């Protein structure tokens, strides 16, 4: 199985761990991730205003490249995934965005949302499968009580993201079970960590994180896992009460590619 892979800028710098462990695990699970030579930053937030076209163009380039290769496009950073997936839907369903973007880009072939965008978690669930993953686990995370921290971007808007139920998601818990850990469900796993508001008002972000960590601890989480570099940053730097890792680090441990700390 070969996929186009869009890492995004944070995975090349502060979140290298997320990128590296994801690549090694994909290879071990028989999925080849091919990174295009010339992708550009997706802009980190989906432009909600209908009249904004230019901020969507880098996402459209990445989507059109995957179409040209005839491959599905795998994302990993929750923010990139949100931008690429939603922009793709605009290209398929919104005539104004589609026409304007194609006019700007002058691609060899017009793009209308043909690419399938998959988050790495969907690659695990829908293309590889939990059973196949379970079969490859050599170092199960037995006894580790881990809370999934979904945050916002993987799930919402549910109508567009279509990954899971926005209020009662299970995909990360299913993943944790597949690698032998004990998932702990807590109420605030899909409440916002403060996101970019940490740049505007750090105290506000701290208040968000404190509420999340208190709830997670009260429910019995001993550590948290996430797919988003900004969630990880906020949970660690504006909180710190619980250990937080990228879900791909846990996968790498379970597959015996990396020792548990």
């Amino acid at each position: 199985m070969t996929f186009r892979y869009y890492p995004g800028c944070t995975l090349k710098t502060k979140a290298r761990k997320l990128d590296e462990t994801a690549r090694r695990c994909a290879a071990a699970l028989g999925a080849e991730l091919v990174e295009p030579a010339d992708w550009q930053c997706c802009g980190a937030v989906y432009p909600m205003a209908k009249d904004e076209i230019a901020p969507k163009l880098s996402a459209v380039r990445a989507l059109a490249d995957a179409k040209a290769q005839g491959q599905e496009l795998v994302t990993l950073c929750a923010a990139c995934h949100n931008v690429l997936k939603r922009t793709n839907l605009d290209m398929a369903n919104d005539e104004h965005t589609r026409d304007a973007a194609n006019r700007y880009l002058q691609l060899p072939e017009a793009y209308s949302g043909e690419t399938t965008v998959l988050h790495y978690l969907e690659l695990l669930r829908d293309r590889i499968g939990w059973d196949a993953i379970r079969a490859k686990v050599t170092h199960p995370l037995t006894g580790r009580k881990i809370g999934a921290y979904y945050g916002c971007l993987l799930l919402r808007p549910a109508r567009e993201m279509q990954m899971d139920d926005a209020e009662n998601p299970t995909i990360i818990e299913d993943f944790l079970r597949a690698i032998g850990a004990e998932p702990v469900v807590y109420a605030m796993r899909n409440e916002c960590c403060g996101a970019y508001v940490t740049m505007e008002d750090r105290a506000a972000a701290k208040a968000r994180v404190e509420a999340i960590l208190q709830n997670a601890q009260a429910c019995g989480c001993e550590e948290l896992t996430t797919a988003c570099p900004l969630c990880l940053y906020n949970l660690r730097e504006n909180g710190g009460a619980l250990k937080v890792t990228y879900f791909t680090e846990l996968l790498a441990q379970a597959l015996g590619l990396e020792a548990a700390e």
Partner: protein
Amino acid sequence: MNDTYLEYQAEILRMTDRDPKRCMICGKCTASCPAFSEMDFHPHQIVGMVERCEFDVLETVEGLWHCMSCMACSERCPRDVQPARFMDAVRQWRIRKQGGEHLHPQQVPEKIDEATPQQAIAAAFRKYRK
């Protein structure tokens, strides 16, 4: 009604592609908003102020900068008003105006540390300046 305000309203409705008249003021968006305690005005009020063309107030709302675009309000709105789009559109309207930038590049060094991900900086530039 002031013509300029009607133009502002038209601009915002172009951005949101949603009719604020659909709002039934149930307050579910505001109840869902994790930034509630830092906001002077809340999502359901922002929707109402756009509908009533209260741009003199919208010009001064500070709560916009505390919206995290978490989409909880839009997800839970029973009338599909998409209040998060209204928050974002009013914020866009503010930063698009001359001198409306809320973040200057010179301020960035003091707001970040060793671990700050690029994602936070890119997102803040998108949300706080044109």
